[in-house]
């Protein structure tokens, strides 16, 4: 057969051809450009428009950035150094970075305290964020709130120690009683903690100067530190409150349900700024006469209420998304309500709600800038007040706003990236 074929055809190749490279238009950068940038005419126009936009942005930004002056006395010195060329005056940041980060009144020789508190915040949040880390680190997480308070506000270490001891006593009592019933453990634990704090109050009163750091008043907190304090404290406080509100809203008990509904809808219906007005001008009327609470404490109360209403709605979504069968399965195992919630429902519902909770947390952290409106000196407040109104730096805008925006961007973007990573880690469904 092969002979006849060889004779009937003029030419038969007998050896395999070597592999040829693909045609130049179908490979490498050309192919990529064609597929992704110049697929058709409208696409090509879009690409050109985008290129022009990027060029316009960079053409303005790069010379401004590279000509920047990093050290100068004031804005006139800066302009003298620039000598007519367009350039940034980042000297304002190298000059005033401490105000931007720590506020105007925090004692300068104590800056190591907020810095240490900031580093410890990461260390103590790490075991919560990454479940692969050794569980022993959770001890640091437990003591961090007290340690952080002591570092930032100063005073004797006995007060936070007593607070910690109260929590530990409460937890021990809870552990002992919870085998009987959850309610007993819960309320017993709280009662025990209060007793411990009451007793501890006498010790604190006696031990005024034990291991005391220089005390810093609340009104001296400021700058980005204040945003961080408000963000962390309010988010951590609002999580448990939000869970309770969400459970209350799902509850069969009419009165409790309506209390929760009214609270959540009221808080969600008004802007945060009105709640901050309440904190600054109204709330004082509702405290017992003669007591004078810190503005920062009043603001923390209002922001916590605000964020717990939003977190409650997110968690309610998670509770509703859970299949009915999970609730029924818990009932059929004979678990009572607290057991069913703690062991079956909440772990799953919270997992579903993580993206939403992180969104609320990021939104809340951004909203902490609103306290500048009620004349607290957070990052935005410092920028608008002491920096813009100073004689040295009046007229510097973009550098400071860029710095402020960058700080927020770094924090918020990394939180949202973390949340996406966590979602992938927790995905147990098979796709």
């Amino acid at each position, binding site marked *: 057969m092969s002979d006849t074929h060889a004779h009937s055809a003029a030419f038969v190749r007998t050896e395999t051809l070597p592999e040829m490279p693909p045609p130049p238009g179908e490979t490498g950068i050309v192919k990529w450009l064609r597929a992704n940038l110049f697929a058709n005419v409208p696409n090509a126009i879009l690409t050109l428009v985008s290129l022009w936009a990027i060029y316009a942005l960079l053409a303005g930004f790069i010379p401004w950035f590279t000509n920047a002056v990093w050290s100068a006395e004031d804005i006139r010195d800066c302009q003298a150094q620039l000598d007519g060329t367009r350039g940034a005056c980042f000297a304002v940041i190298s000059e005033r970075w401490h105000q931007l980060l720590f506020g105007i009144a925090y004692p300068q020789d104590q800056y190591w305290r907020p810095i240490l508190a900031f580093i410890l915040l990461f260390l103590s949040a790490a075991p919560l964020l990454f479940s692969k880390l050794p569980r022993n680190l959770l001890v640091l997480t437990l003591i961090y709130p007290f340690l952080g308070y002591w570092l930032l506000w100063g005073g004797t270490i006995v007060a936070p120690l007593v607070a910690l001891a109260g929590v530990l006593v409460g937890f021990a009592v809870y552990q002992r009683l919870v085998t009987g019933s959850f309610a007993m453990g819960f309320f017993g634990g709280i009662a025990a903690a209060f007793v411990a704090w009451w007793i501890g109050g006498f010790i604190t009163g006696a031990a005024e100067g034990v291991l005391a750091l220089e005390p810093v008043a609340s009104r001296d907190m400021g700058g980005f530190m204040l945003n961080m304090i408000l963000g962390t404290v309010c988010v951590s406080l609002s999580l448990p409150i939000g869970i309770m509100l969400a459970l209350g809203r799902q509850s069969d008990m009419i009165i409790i349900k309506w209390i929760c509904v009214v609270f959540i809808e009221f808080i969600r219906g008004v802007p945060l700024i009105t709640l901050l007005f309440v904190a600054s001008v109204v709330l004082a009327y509702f405290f017992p006469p003669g007591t004078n609470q810190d503005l920062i404490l009043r603001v923390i109360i209002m922001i916590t209420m605000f964020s717990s209403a939003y977190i409650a709605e997110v968690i309610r979504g998670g509770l509703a998304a859970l299949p009915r069968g999970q609730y029924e399965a818990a009932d059929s195992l004979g678990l009572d309500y607290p057991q069913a919630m703690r062991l079956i429902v909440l772990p799953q519902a919270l997992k579903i709600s993580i993206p939403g909770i992180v969104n609320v947390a990021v939104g809340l952290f951004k909203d902490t800038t609103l306290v500048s409106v009620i004349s607290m000196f957070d990052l935005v407040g410092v920028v608008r007040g002491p920096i813009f109104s100073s004689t040295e730096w009046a007229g510097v805008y973009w550098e400071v*706003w860029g710095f402020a925006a960058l700080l927020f961007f770094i924090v918020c973007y990394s939180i949202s990236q973390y949340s996406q990573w966590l979602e992938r880690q927790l995905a147990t469904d098979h796709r």
Partner: protein
Amino acid sequence: MSAISEEAVPSFRLSMLVYDTRYRSLTFQFIALAVLIAFMAFMGMNLVRNLAAAGLNISYNFLGDTAGYDINQTLIDYTNQSTHQRAAIVGILNTLLVAFLGCVTATVLGVFAGILRLSGNWLVAKLMAAYVEAFRNVPVLIWILIIGTVVTTLPAPSAYRGETPDSEMLFGVIALTNRGIYIPAPVWGPGSMIVVAAFILSILGAIMYRRYATKLLYDTGKLLPMGWPTLVILIVPSLLVFFIMGRPIGLDYPALQGFNFQGGIQVQRPLIALWLALSIYTGAFIAENVRAGILAVSKGQTEAASALGLRPNRTMSLVVLPQALRVIIPPLISQYLNITKNSSLAIAVGYADITATLGGITLNQTGRAIEAVLLLMLFYLVISLAISAVMNVYNKSVALKER
């Protein structure tokens, strides 16, 4: 057996309030209510005592007093001799104005950015991703203040003067200055109402034509063109009436006179800053909602539509969009709510919205903190409850009819 059936019904014991699940919820609710009432009473008593100590009372009479301050941008007549109530109404209207404008532009911006982020064009998709991330991760207050600074860098009115001015008016009619933007104002001449009526009638006509075409399509399968007849019905009759009536609607163009522009409508700088900032900021969020909505429609739907022989644009309008809108609209409406609430940041750029008038100057002048903040909250609460009512109606109307 009989012993069991004759067993007496256990009488009520006090311990059942705690251990019997039938009564326990009642106990809890009673305790919760008692705690709540006690808490409220405690707060109320504190309030009364604090007010008495400060020599104050709760009264809304201050609303009738003369406000005594000026507001730069008002939709209704207002002078500094008007009452605080009038100032509050000016504030309400200003809030609604910036919220409305912000919703419109944010939607347009968000839909564009959301669709472009899904585009096959790599560069455009990345640019839109950068826009969305940059605006979502920086506080809106900072954006408002940044854009508030940007608008101060617009040229002064004097830059438009002279033979060879430094700045040109946009299209010869719009002046962008650091005192605000001047746009032409419509002048309603005699007979202009007839033109407006004609336009409203032609909108009705267009709707009726579209209904008729849809009905014809469903009844007989005959496909009438939709796009250009609608446009013709909308435009042609109004234009005809406009010219027949002798062009009753004119435009009053802004012109430079002395140190400032005269004529036209002046849109003040704070309004522009707030409007732009809210639109761009919320546009980033809406872009994410739009993207999520389009991605939520499974690819099988598009493929099924193509398998039925629908062309790509019909696939989009008949199959993908209706399903995507079901996902997009609820978060979109809550973004509108967010714009309304975020417009309260107007106080940072000096725009006289309700928070700046009632919650700002009025509060500071009269010292009526509780009343002013209460009224302020009430206003926002009414707005947001109204918007959520609309949302509930919509959700009901598009909910999947499940059996």
